[in-house]
């Protein structure tokens, strides 16, 4: 027996190290293939930091940015938090992008207030910072904001619900996002404004947080129905929550006589509008936000021209049951322009 090649602990460790090295090479090889082409000294580096890697909304946003970067010969670097609300993760991403020498950073802030000091550091280094989708607090912490007007998005479905309920007494459930998160608050307030009621209006019989999650949306709706079985209007923060609510209503045989309205315009959600599960949704355009953001950074790099202020990337009400006096587009348009 050749005793010399017995696997000693040190040999095992050496093998593991080699394994790790090989792993690094393969993983990086596959991930960075697209970058090597544009690695010339002249290409503009653009950073995109989303809330998470996994939410289809941000996946679509990344797609939009990648396409725009490719078209304009820029190099896109992306990063994301580990979960919605991961401020520290976004701070780390900003630092790494500064180190990588980006010309501009596009960010969907997870925490509108907490991210501000890190953004200030980036701007102090002459980096153009653009918020996508959600504003920072204060809004002046970034150079520009490219986003959907979330208050307007809420207002549209509020007005739609109001028109649909003409002559009936509304019993409203609001399935919200989470306390203190700007997007959720704006959509919620917009809905109430569009419906023409205040926060304390007796028509609101139930309000629950869902985190924008389908399963939690279902639980929330079940509990709301337990509390107030005569609910006939459901406002939802997004379409996953709306589909959760639909499942809960269906279990009670109420899916036909309850009006569900929502916001986002994802492809699954828009299809649900077409299928009649959701009455109407306000569609937003993440691809456009990202593409315009990349364009602004490239412009800044080439002409030193800074984007400023708020750019509304638009929102459309999608429904197949149009109401008089409420502008809307049908689901065919919605499915052509949906994301995810």
């Amino acid at each position, binding site marked *: 027996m050749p005793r010399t090649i017995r*696997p*000693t*602990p*040190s040999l*095992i*460790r*050496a093998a*593991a*190290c080699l*394994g*790790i*090295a090989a*792993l*690094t*090479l393969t*993983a*990086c090889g596959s*991930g*960075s293939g697209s*970058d090597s082409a544009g690695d010339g000294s002249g290409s503009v580096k653009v950073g995109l930091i989303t809330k998470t*890697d*996994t939410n289809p909304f941000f996946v679509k946003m990344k797609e939009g940015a990648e396409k725009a970067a490719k078209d304009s010969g820029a*190099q*896109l*670097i*992306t*990063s*994301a938090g*580990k*979960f919605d*609300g*991961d*401020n*520290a993760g976004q*701070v*780390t*991403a900003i*630092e*790494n*992008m500064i*180190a*990588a*020498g980006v010309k501009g950073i596009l960010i969907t802030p*997870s*925490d509108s*207030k*907490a991210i*501000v*000091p*890190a953004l200030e550091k980036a701007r102090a280094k002459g980096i153009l910072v653009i918020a996508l989708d959600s504003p920072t607090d204060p809004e002046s912490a970034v150079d520009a904001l490219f986003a959907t007007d979330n208050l307007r998005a809420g207002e549209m479905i509020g007005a739609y619900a109001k028109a649909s309920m003409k002559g009936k007494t509304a019993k409203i459930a609001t399935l919200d996002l*989470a*306390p*203190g998160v700007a997007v959720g608050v704006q959509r919620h307030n917009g809905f109430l404004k569009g419906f023409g009621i205040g926060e304390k209006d007796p028509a609101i019989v139930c309000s629950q947080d869902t985190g924008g999650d389908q399963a939690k949306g279902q639980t929330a709706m079940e509990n709301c129905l337990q509390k107030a079985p005569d609910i006939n209007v459901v406002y939802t923060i997004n379409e996953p929550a709306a589909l959760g609510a639909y499942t809960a209503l269906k279990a009670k045989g109420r899916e036909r006589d309850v009006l569900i309205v929502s916001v986002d315009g994802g492809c699954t959600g828009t299809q649900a509008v077409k299928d009649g599960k959701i009455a109407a949704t306000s569609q937003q355009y993440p691809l456009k936000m990202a593409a315009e953001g990349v364009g602004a950074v490239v412009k800044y790099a080439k002409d030193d021209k800074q984007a400023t202020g708020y750019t509304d990337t638009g929102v459309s009400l999608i429904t197949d049951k149009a109401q008089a006096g409420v502008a809307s587009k049908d689901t065919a348009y919605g499915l052509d322009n949906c994301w995810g």
Partner: protein
Amino acid sequence: MTATTAPYAELKTPTTARRLLTAPTTGPLAALLLACVFFSLSTDQFLTGGNFSLIVQQVMVVGTLAIGQTLIILTAGIDLSCGAVMAFGSIVIAKMAAEGTLPPLLAITLGLVVCGGFGLLNGLLVQKIPLPPFIVTLGMLNVAFALTHIYSEEQTVTSLPGPLTALGETFPLGRTDITYGSLVTIGLFLLLAYALSSTGWGRHVYALGNSQEAARLNGIRTSRLTIGIYTVAGVLYGLAALLLISRTGVGDPQAGQTENLDSITAVVLGGTSLFGGRGSVLGTFIGVLIVGVFRNGLQLMGVASIYQTLITGILVILAVTVDQMSRRKAR
């Protein structure tokens, strides 16, 4: 570093060279160096002083948590509550100081005491009832998480007074800027490494991790030792809270949600055995640096962050495999 190998390794009276090779930190250190070489070759920005300073800044919070986690894992325990306890500590410090309820230094002290209190409570429940550390700290995770959100009223605390962010300030060293917090973290690692390798307390910790019963029969006051370890860990989480505040400039109730698992990742990557009694704090430092270097390096290369998660996951499995195999061979 070699003195921190487990007692059974010392029984074989190995040569210095062999002890270096079989030290639990050798593998992780090699992995770290390999990763550094790789990233230096693949990007222009990696091999700069400023970037290394940045990586240390980025890992100091998880690093400090991971010191406490190492102590607990050395006793064959585990702490799932560290991130949540840190988050609560950071909100206590930030809110007390920002609203002027307490002067900044007292607010910081209170934060350390509160976090130490959580540690003490964990230790008492683990030792006195006794309950499995996994369950106790899982419960405490939820308690601390909820208290954070209740006390903060879901609001991020901004406009912090100077002393709270002082550790995030930098001083120049050569052509790079180092934060004071990085120095604190490195100091803590050295301090705990010394305590574990060169004091009676340290030997007792390893003995406890190898066999609580044997340690007790040898006259070690295991109960007091265990409770002490959890309390020290808690205070370390308080320090991590202070470092977190100084780094981000805000008190953030959403913080700390993945740091418990991140700290365990660092401990495992650093070669500390999850079964207790074997490993070192310096190994953990290497472990956090491995994660930090991969995250930073892949980012500089333009690799999407989901690959960072993928690679970290594979590294952890590799590290535990190595630990298991070398344990078996060593017997």
